[in-house]
């Protein structure tokens, strides 16, 4: 995308789709990195939400680009699932903390072997 075209687009008060996608990718990678590197379950959980929202962003960007409504629909679905997941996930985290007195993800490994 050449700078002249970008400048033209910005002049009309719109952000180019590629920028949204780039932001989405950055957010997603931050989410992945946090998921892999952090040990606190709450943080890991937040990273998952971050990844979901990164994907949502790219859905919206594409929907706007192609002038189609499907992307919005997907986003709503993802948000509903994420809400449900948050409810269940936080409940699980609470229970785990009560039983094990820890939130360190590396110590919860009873499925091993």
């Amino acid at each position, binding site marked *: 995308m050449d700078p002249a075209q970008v400048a033209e687009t910005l002049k009309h008060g719109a952000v180019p789709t590629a920028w949204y996608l780039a932001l989405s990718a950055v957010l997603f990678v931050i989410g*992945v990195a946090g*998921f*892999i*590197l952090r*040990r606190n379950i709450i943080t*890991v959980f937040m990273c998952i939400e971050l990844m979901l929202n990164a994907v949502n962003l790219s859905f919206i960007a594409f929907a706007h680009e192609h002038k189609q409504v499907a992307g919005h629909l997907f986003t709503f679905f993802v948000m509903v699932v994420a809400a449900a997941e948050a409810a269940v996930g936080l409940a699980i985290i609470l229970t785990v903390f009560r039983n094990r007195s820890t939130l360190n*993800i*590396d110590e*919860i*490994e*009873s*499925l*091993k*072997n």
Partner: protein
Amino acid sequence: MFKLWLIPLLPFLGFLINGILGKKLPKLAINAVAVGSVLASFLWVALVVGPSSDWGANKLHAHYFTWIASGNFHVGWDFAVDKLTMIMLMIVTGIGTLIHIYATGYMDHEGGYYRFFAYLNLFMFFMLNLVLAANYLILFVGWEGVGLCSYLLIGFYFHKKSATTAGNKAFIVNRVGDFGFAMAMFLIVIQFGSLDFTPVFTKAPGAPVETLTAIALLMLVGAAGKSAQIPLYVWLPDAMEGPTPVSALIHAATMVTAGVYMCSRSAVIFLHAPAAMDVVALIGLATAVFAATIGITQYDIKKVFAYSTVSQLGYMFLGVGVGAFSAGIWHLMTHAFFKALLFLGAGSVIHACHGEQDMRHMGGLKKYAPWTCIVLACASLAIAGFPGTSGFFSKDAILTAAYEHAPWMFWVGVVTAGMTAFYVWRAFWMTFWGEYRGHGKPHESPMVMLAPLMVLAVLSLGGGFLFNVPEILKDMFPLKEEIPEEHMLMAISVAAGLIGIAMSWYMYVVNQELPGKIANALGGLYRLVDDKYRIDEAYDAAIVEPLIEGSSAVLWKTVDAGIIDGAVNGVGSQARGIGNVLKLIQSGNIRSYATWIVAGSVVIIIVMGIAGGVR
């Protein structure tokens, strides 16, 4: 029509009723079904089929359905009755009825009563099928079926290891013979394109001699298996493990004569293969002598009669081999009378001595079991060829025919006749004369056992006068013309029999130390004969052991345990090994799972990027 199908079907119904319902039926009902069905088929044969005049020149023939149809080759379920079949039918159903009646008394105290009679009826069904068959395949069905029943009944006391082993032995040795018979049938199909008796025997005179000889020799292999001839006779003495009525019916009177019947039925083929005829005669003669010598040394009363059966079957084959088919069939019939009587008498003796079979523990029974003594004397006279008895006529017919064929065969036959008289009368003297040497008090058998014995005794004595088989069969097998030496030959064979009886009387009644002295003097030779020439041991060493060794070393340890088990177990242990490596991935560490997912996604994206991706 004469409803020929009724003849085998009646015993088969008896088998079904007793086999399926027998456990719940009272003994009386089992007896009624078992004896009644056989008696009914005997009466059907004797009163309905027998008197018809139709089966003279053109025989009774009935086609029921086509069993196999393949191109031009057809095999139907066909029965036919000619005079030869008629004689066999009368023997099988007649003697079968008597033995069924006897068995109701003999088996009274045995377990598995209904099972015994179900098997016996099944045997009758297959045997009647065998003799009624109008083609080789139906004959073969009966042939295999009687083998099965023989196996089942030898192993009737299945809790006894020796009985089951004997059953297996009979079955396996017969397989060797049946292989020969099956090969003969294949050759017949190739040569004649049919298995029906009529076309085969019509075309046989025009066929090449080599093919006919091959067919005849292969048939002889089959006959030698079923009729216990050298080298396949080994199963018959062991078959005495079965109940005594079975020994009488199957292993003396009927089934073992199937080989002789088959050879006589195929007379046309044999007559056009002179080399095969010589082999038949030689094998018959060799078996007759060989088994007679073993019979002399045995002490088990049933074993004596078993070797006697082998020896007498040898006689029949000698008759067939020298071309005297009707003499062979005649001897088959008279032998059925007196050998069934000998076995049933032996059963009565064993019954009297509380299950004892060793003649050294018998003796003096003429006082305790007079009727058994009398009927056994009749049978022993008949088998010794005493003038006027049934055995005299048939044996003389065979020996005369042998003399015409080759005088030396006659002389060997005469010596065998002497030995036969000797060992049978040896058994008689040891059982009935002297003092009782066994345990308990011997007793006479019940009337239901004695009555069939008396009928058989009459037939043993008068069977030669009543049924002149060569005369009956003269349409099929032309009568031999009289030869000038005939009366001299007759005198010689009678003399041999009388000398045998006299010698046994001298050795086992007058001078009882003599047999022991002779045995000692002969030393090794006696022990060799006493051990039945160690043929069983030789077969074990030459055939059975190598087979077991081979199958255990090659088939079991190499092929089964090595290759097959190795492959199956190898797959298992390989899967386990792979699993052991793969399970390391399942660390339980969520972050490592996530890493794998990311790595996997990256790989997929890279691959799709290289491959061109989704458009």
